[in-house]
C-alpha cells in the first residue's frame, strides 16, 4: 500500500544501482500492507492511529528552511546535518581525508560502492520500504582498516516541515581494526510529522563502534526508527539511546553478532510524559561462538504516558559460549502511566549464560522515607531517586556534550514535574 506519489524520479535524480534499489523498494511498498494489530511486532503499539494520508514525503531539499536548535550546533565544524531526510550540512566532507575516511552522500562515494552495498539492509516491512523509496540520499560514514577517528561524528537529524514524512538513512561501514564514535541528535519542529530513520552499521573485524542517540522530537512527531548492527569477529559495539520526545516514538535495535568473540552493549534511558508513547524493540542475535551482549534499558513514565519494551535474545545452535543479558526497569510516576515490559529468550544451544529481568514499579517508599528522614522534601527526594535510578545508564555516557544535554533535559523534566505538583 503506497498512499504517496509513485512518480518520483525527477525529485531524486540518483543513478544505478541506487535508482534500481529505489524502484524495487517502491514496487515492494505498493505490495506491502501497513502494520495491523494482529502482528506480534506491533503489539501494544498505537501505530494504527497514524494518519498517513495527512502527510507527504519530503520531495524537495528544504535547505532554505529554518533549522531546529541543537546542542550539537556548538560543534559546527564537525556537524553533519540531515533535514527532512536530505543531507543539508555544508561541512559534510571535512572529515573525509587522505586516510580514506569518507563522510558524505553514498552516491558521491564513487568506486567502492559495491563493497559497501553488500552490507545494506534489504527492506522487509512497510516502514523499511517507505524509507528505501523516499530517502533522498544516503549518508555514508566509511572508516577504512586501521583508522581510529579521534573525534566523534555529530549528526543532527531534524524534521523542519510540518506535515512531512522524512526518511533519513545512515550507513556506517567500519573496516578492520578501526574505531569511531557517532552521536545523533533527533529533533523536529512542533508540527505534525513522521520520521522513519534507518541506520545500517557494519563493524569489521576487531573494530569498535560507539553509537549514541538523543531523541528529543517535537510533541506531535511520530517516529519509527530502526538501527541494524552487524558485528564481525572480535568487534564491539556500544549503543546508547536517550528518548524523551515525540508523540509516538518507536525504536527498533537489532544486533547481529555474526563473528566469533563479538560484543554488543546496549543501554537506554527514556522518560515519558503527558500522552507520549515510547516503544522499544530489541533483538540480540548470537550467531557465533563466544559472543557477548548486555542490555540495560531504564525508563520513567509520568502523566498518561506509555512505554513498551519488548526484547528478544536469540542464540543459534552454533553460538556456544554465549553470554547474554537483558534488563528492563521502569518507574511509574503517576497513576495513569503505563509500562509494558516483555523480555524473551530463544536459546538453541547449551553452554550459554543468559538471563533477563524486567520490573515495573513506583518510587520506592523506603528510599523516599530514608531521604525524607534527612530533611529533604518529598518532591526533592523523588527527584533524587529518579536521577539516581537513571544514573546506572547515564553515568556510562562518556561524551561531555551529550552528558550535559541529557542532564539538562532530565533536570528540565524533573523540575517542571515538581513545579506542576507544587501548584
Amino acid at each position, binding site marked *: 500500500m503506497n498512499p504517496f506519489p509513485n512518480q518520483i524520479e525527477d525529485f531524486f535524480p540518483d543513478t544505478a544501482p541506487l535508482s534500481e534499489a529505489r524502484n524495487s523498494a517502491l514496487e515492494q511498498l505498493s505490495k506491502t500492507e501497513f502494520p495491523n494489530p494482529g502482528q506480534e511486532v506491533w503489539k501494544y503499539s498505537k501505530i494504527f492511529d497514524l494518519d498517513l494520508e495527512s502527510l507527504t514525503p519530503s520531495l524537495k531539499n528544504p535547505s532554505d528552511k529554518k533549522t531546529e536548535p541543537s546542542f550539537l550546533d556548538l560543534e559546527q565544524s564537525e556537524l553533519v546535518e540531515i533535514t527532512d531526510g536530505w543531507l543539508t550540512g555544508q561541512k559534510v566532507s571535512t572529515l573525509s581525508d587522505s586516510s580514506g575516511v569518507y563522510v558524505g552522500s553514498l552516491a558521491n562515494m564513487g568506486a567502492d560502492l559495491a563493497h559497501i552495498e553488500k552490507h545494506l539492509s534489504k527492506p522487509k516491512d512497510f516502514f523499511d520500504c517507505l524509507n528505501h523509496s523516499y530517502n533522498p540520499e544516503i549518508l555514508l560514514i566509511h572508516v577504512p582498516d586501521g583508522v581510529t577517528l579521534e573525534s566523534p561524528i555529530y549528526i543532527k537529524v531534524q524534521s523542519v516541515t510540518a506535515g512531512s514524512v522524512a526518511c533519513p538513512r545512515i550507513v556506517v561501514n567500519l573496516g578492520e581494526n578501526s574505531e569511531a564514535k557517532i552521536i545523533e541528535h533527533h529533533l523536529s519542529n512542533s508540527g505534525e510529522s513522521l520520521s522513519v530513520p534507518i541506520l545500517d552499521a557494519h563493524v569489521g573485524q576487531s573494530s569498535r563502534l560507539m553509537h549514541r542517540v538523543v531523541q528529543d522530537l517535537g510533541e506531535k512527531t511520530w517516529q519509527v526508527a530502526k538501527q541494524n548492527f552487524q558485528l564481525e569477529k572480535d568487534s564491539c559495539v556500544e549503543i546508547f539511546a536517550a528518548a524523551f520526545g515525540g508523540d509516538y516514538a518507536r525504536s527498533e535495535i537489532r544486533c547481529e553478532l555474526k563473528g566469533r568473540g563479538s560484543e554488543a552493549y546496549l543501554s537506554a534511558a527514556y522518560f515519558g510524559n503527558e500522552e507520549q508513547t515510547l516503544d522499544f524493540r530489541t533483538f540480540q542475535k548470537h550467531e557465533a561462538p563466544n559472543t557477548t551482549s548486555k542490555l540495560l534499558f531504564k525508563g520513567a513514565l509520568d502523566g498518561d504516558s506509555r512505554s513498551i519494551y519488548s526484547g528478544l535474545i536469540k542464540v543459534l545452535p552454533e553460538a556456544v559460549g554465549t553470554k547474554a543479558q537483558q534488563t528492563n526497569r521502569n518507574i511509574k510516576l503517576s497513576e495513569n502511566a503505563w509500562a509494558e515490559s516483555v523480555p524473551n529468550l530463544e536459546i538453541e544451544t547449551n553452554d550459554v549464560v543468559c538471563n533477563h529481568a524486567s520490573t515495573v514499579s513506583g518510587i520506592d517508599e523506603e528510599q523516599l522515607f530514608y*531521604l525524607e528522614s534527612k*530533611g529533604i522534601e518529598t518532591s526533592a527526594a523523588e527527584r*533524587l531517586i529518579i536521577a539516581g535510578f*537513571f544514573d546506572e545508564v547515564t553515568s556510562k555516557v562518556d561524551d561531555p556534550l551529550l552528558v550535559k544535554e541529557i542532564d539538562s533535559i532530565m533536570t528540565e523534566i524533573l523540575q517542571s514535574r515538581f513545579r506542576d505538583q507544587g501548584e
Partner: protein
Amino acid sequence: MTNEKLLNIEGLCATAGGKKVLNGVDIQIKPSEVHAIMGPNGSGKSTLAHVLMGRPGFEVTSGSITIDGLDVLSLQTWERAQAGMFIVLQHPIEVPGVKISDLLTEVAVASELDPQESLSSLREEAANLGIDESLLDRELNVDLSGGEKKRNETLQLLVSEAKYAILDEIDSGLDVDSLALVAERINRAAKGDRLGVLAITHFNRLLDILKPDQVHVLVDGRIVETGPAELALQLEKDGYQKFSK
C-alpha cells in the same frame, strides 16, 4: 503546651503493619541527655524509632510526641527532620545512584545553607571518624558493610543541625575501634552541641562510652523500668526474665 526544650513522648500507642506494638510509652529527653532503651527482641524498640520519624507502615493510635513544644505527629517525615530530629536506622536503606554529597547538597539547599560549606564540613568530620574520602562518592548504602553504613550515618548526624538523635542499634556492624570512635563522637555532640540522644541497643559496649543518663527497659510495648546507667549492667547479667509476664 510549653516551649520547654524537650523531646516528649507521652502515652504513645502504635501499630506496625496493623499489629499493636506500643502500648503507652512515656519518655522525656532534654538537650544533652542520653537515654538508652533496652529490651528483648520484639518488645517494640525499633517500632518506637520508626514511629518517631513517621515511617510508612507504622501508625500512632494514641498518645503524643512533641519536640520543643512542636507537635511532631502532625508533621511529615522531612518536616520532622527539619525540626531537628535525626534517625539512624538499624538497616540504612540503599538508594542506588545517589551519593552522600548529592544528599547533603539537597539538605543544605533545603536549610538555606551553602552546599560548599556543608561538603567541606562533611569532609572534615569524615576524617575525624576515620572515613575514607572515597566513601563519600559511593552510592548511598549500596554495597557497603554494616559498619560503613553506620559510620556514614553518624557522619551525617554530626554535620546535621539535629537536636535529637534516635539511634537504632548504631553499634551493630561496627568493630570495636569504630564503635569507640562513633560513640565518643556522639557523646561529645551530646555534651558540646546539646544533642539529645535516644539510643536503642542490646549491649553495654556502646553504653560504656555513651554514659546514658537514664536506661529504660521496654517490654511488650511498655517501659517497665527506668534507672541509672548501672541498670544496663544488671540487665546484661540477669536478662529480661523478671519483666516477663
